[in-house]
């Protein structure tokens, strides 16, 4: 039987691993390589890397921006692919087929497309035909505005008129193979998933949905699997608070009789960069 998945999300901003709150505030968690090694050794089911750098919002007060230890997303993916043998999805700043090709070339298995899909839905079709639907993850961010949940783009800077369920159906028809669904309002708030919307979307589409946004404890991950039809539960910040985080999260899910791959250990050889 296929297991439902637990997926740590790593947010990279200007070369640093960060923690995010409602897509507006970021806290630097340090060098991404250490986190990557840790998450790989605890045998995560997959990893998702989102590059949320925005050139125009570089915070010049930060004194670590010029730090020599910054790594590009390409270096990180390449190194993980060489040493960790796990499925990798890469998102952020993907605007062309060449952008996709470059990420796959260094070892990514899937790419997540968000803003470009909103601006040019046909791009999803073209990308799916070129690389296969299994390679194209439609990343959908939404927030509540005047009581209505709407899809947002450009790191939540642009509000669309799309309702999340309808947009999810649209990207499925366009050829996306998977949906990463993230609540901007709950991002970094530790109040749990937007279970209602996640379930609504996962019941409307026939492709797997990855739930994201709001996890503050292992119980929230379990709820995401128990109370919605999402195929996978993802979270970012929580995996950086505690050591052995993937192992402990898996242990909790197994104890609650959820169909996940049991906790495992994997020896990662030396990461080079």
């Amino acid at each position, binding site marked *: *039987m*296929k*297991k*439902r*998945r637990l997926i740590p999300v790593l947010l990279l901003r200007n070369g640093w691993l960060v923690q995010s709150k409602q897509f507006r505030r970021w806290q630097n968690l340090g060098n991404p390589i250490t986190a990557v090694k840790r998450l790989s050794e605890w*045998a995560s*089911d997959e990893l998702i890397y989102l590059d949320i750098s925005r050139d125009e919002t570089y915070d010049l007060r930060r004194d670590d921006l010029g730090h020599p230890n910054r790594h590009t997303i390409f270096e990180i993916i390449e190194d993980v*692919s*060489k*040493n*960790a*043998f*796990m*499925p990798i999805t890469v998102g952020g700043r993907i605007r062309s087929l060449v952008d996709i090709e470059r990420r*796959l*070339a*260094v*070892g990514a*298995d*899937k790419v997540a497309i968000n803003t470009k899909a909103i601006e040019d839905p046909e791009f999803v079709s073209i990308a799916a035909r070129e*690389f*296969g*639907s*299994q*390679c194209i993850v439609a990343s959908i961010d939404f927030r509540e505005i005047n009581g209505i949940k709407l899809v947002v783009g450009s790191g939540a800077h642009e509000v669309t008129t799309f309702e999340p369920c309808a947009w999810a159906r649209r990207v499925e028809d366009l050829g996306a*193979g*998977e949906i990463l669904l993230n609540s901007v309002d709950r991002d970094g708030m530790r109040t749990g998933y937007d279970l209602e919307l996640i379930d609504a979307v996962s019941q409307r*589409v*026939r*492709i*797997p*949905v990855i739930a994201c946004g709001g996890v503050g404890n292992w119980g929230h991950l379990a709820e995401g699997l128990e109370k919605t039809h999402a*195929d*996978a539960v993802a979270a970012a910040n929580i995996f950086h608070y505690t050591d052995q985080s993937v192992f402990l999260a898996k242990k909790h899910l197994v104890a609650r009789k959820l169909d996940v*791959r049991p906790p*495992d250990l*994997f020896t990662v*050889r030396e990461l080079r960069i």
Partner: protein
Amino acid sequence: MVRVCVLNYGSGNVGSVFNLFSSLDVTVKVSNRSSDVEHATHIVLPGVGAFGAAMRKIRNTLPLETLENTVLGGGKPFLGICVGMQVLADTSTEFGEHSGLGWISGRVEKLDARGLPLPHIGWNDIAPSREDPLLHELQADTDFYFLHSFAFRPARIDDTLATAEFGERFCAIVQRDNIRGVQFHPEKSQNAGIQLARNFLGMS
């Protein structure tokens, strides 16, 4: 000495497959040259994406005559991965009708997931149908990473080495003589993938 030739025809996962075999401290060459195919002790055909596109690239870039001589004629251990496994079949119905290599008789058809979401993405356990050195030290419920919507349906029941279940029970490993193909991705399956790769390299 073990020399692996990972066939290079522009498949997206060639780098990851190279990394997996390289980690086992054997000589690995990514190539589409006849001489490398002949010189290798083990041949691997990676693959991702659509069947038709993969077959077009295979026909255009790989030395098929040499491959058939060494694999079908010479009995050299061969491993196909994902679409590299599916192309062993006679035909596929993915985006129209396409013909494959026809090395193991069968058809590739859309998985009958019975309402489960497709593609089949994630970790799923395999059930061996019989013993084989490829499965050495891999327990019956070992999870591997799958990422596909279509499945190989071998014409002969004996050619199925292991199955997995997703809506229906489908062929996860196909095998006939020295030719083996896995629907999942050993290069993305952590410990289980390394063990399977090691088992493959142990064959001669």
